[in-house]
């Protein structure tokens, strides 16, 4: 056991500042253990959101020494013995109090996303898909909605004005999941991603991938494939010519498109 110094941001939307705590730390503990100890011994009114303590609920997102992380998955042995550890709330979303932020931006964006649409006439229980066809989508289902990717994305982190047109990486993987889904019948996923979700704002600097605690390859497996699909629809004259010659539909994404 050793005693370490922690700086925790305390305050609300009207302002706040860092409070320092000297806390005993045991071997094998994570940041969330320390925050709980601060609550138990020194600051019982410290606000923190948490739930599973196993990296599966996505509740305890915060920034530790400036890096977006899940507090329950950040082990103390990442830090040197004498190193001061700074904990702040997520800096992209409005703060509620202390380490708790209002992440409703993400839920609003999710509500704007058209839901999965199975082909007409196919009832629940009749869905049949080959494993090889759903593997890509399954990677994106690992998302625990911790919103670390949304928080670290500079498009909205550094530019508040981009929040209305930009949905963010968490919603891009949802768009990719559905566009790659073998039974999704909507033909406007790419249009929606580009026009409604602001896919073009992403400059693929991969911070979303770097912070994802589920190690989803957000940029390589979702965003770039979606950008390539949009490029095929909008910016590729060869694809356009091919469609004209072979009289294919407006877009190759349609459920029974020959391009599938």
């Amino acid at each position, binding site marked *: 056991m050793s005693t370490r110094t922690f700086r925790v*941001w305390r*305050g609300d*939307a009207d302002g*706040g500042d860092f409070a320092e705590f000297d806390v005993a730390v045991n071997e094998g503990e994570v940041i969330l253990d320390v925050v709980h100890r601060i609550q138990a011994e020194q600051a019982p009114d410290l606000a923190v959101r948490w739930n599973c303590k196993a990296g599966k609920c996505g509740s305890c997102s915060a*920034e530790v*020494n*400036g*890096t*977006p992380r899940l507090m329950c998955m950040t082990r103390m042995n990442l830090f040197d013995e004498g190193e001061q550890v*700074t904990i*702040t*709330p997520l*800096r*992209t*979303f*409005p*703060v509620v109090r202390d380490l708790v*932020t*209002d992440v409703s931006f993400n839920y609003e964006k999710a509500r704007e996303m058209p839901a999965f649409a199975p082909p007409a006439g196919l009832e629940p229980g009749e869905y049949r898909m*080959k494993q*090889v*066809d759903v593997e890509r989508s399954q990677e994106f289902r690992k998302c625990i909605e911790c919103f670390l990717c949304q928080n*670290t994305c*500079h*498009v909205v*982190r*550094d*530019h*508040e004005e*981009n929040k209305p047109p930009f949905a963010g990486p968490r919603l891009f993987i949802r768009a990719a999941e559905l*566009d*790659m*889904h*073998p039974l999704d019948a909507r033909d406007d996923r790419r249009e929606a991603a580009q026009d409604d979700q*602001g896919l*073009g*704002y*992403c*400059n*693929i*600097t*991969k*911070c979303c991938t*770097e912070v994802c605690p589920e190690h989803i390859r957000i940029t*390589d497996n979702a965003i*770039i*494939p979606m*950008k*390539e*699909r*949009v*490029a*095929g629809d*909008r*910016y*590729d004259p060869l694809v356009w010519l091919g469609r004209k010659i072979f009289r294919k539909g407006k877009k*190759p*994404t349609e459920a029974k498109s020959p*391009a*599938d």
Partner: protein
Amino acid sequence: MTTTDEPAVSRPPRAAIKARNLRIDNWRRGPILTVLGITAWVAYATFRVFYQGDYWVADYHYLTPFYSPCVSVGCVPESAHFGRFIPDSPLIPYAALSLPFLLAFRLTCYYYRKAYYRSFWLSPPACAVPDGHTRYTGETRFPLILQNFHRYFFYLAVAISLVNSWDAVLAFHSPDGFGFGLGNVVLTANVILLWCYTLGCHSCRHVMGGRLKHFSKHPVRYRLWTLSSALNDRHMMWAWITLGSLALTDFYVMAVAAGWFDDLRFIN
């Protein structure tokens, strides 16, 4: 006190934390190394492209990739495998038919985009470090919307890689006929690495099978996609290795052509 000059991350209703970023790790290292690496390479390549000399080893038919295909009227006739039809001018590279497209291929590459957006454009310089711009529209407008043409440069890069491969085959030569030396190892290794970079490109991955919705209906394309994906996993590595291998190959050919040292010959 809150002012509009404050960065978005510090402005209420977000937590009013004055520091623009709180990272204490060495986040500047990556962008600095990228700037140094790319700047050094561009400086060397620019010098070599306009040097217009020591690009061809007549005895062994070594042609540096920076001059391939050599299509200028100024090219040594034996080095011009595809004819000579571009005017000879100090301002026009001998490989003017390929270099602009190779440059555009790398410039629009998804990895290099990440590298130079972060390091040269500071947008952002590192994760959770504020970018250096008051406004940001990403790749939604001209000129950055042209990044969407990456796949066209990929197609051209495939054609140019075929030319480089042909150069490497022709280089198994000596005054006595067939020959094999250290230069062949360098040229062949460079071509293999170029293929690893080109075929692992995100556009290649899309074209091979990434655009499909049903892999099960297209087993061959699925297989091609998995192979491209395997290369794509290390796209950054291939991007840097090929920058190095291109410069090294060019330097080796230049050194042998200039007589700085002899080629180590294994056969003839």
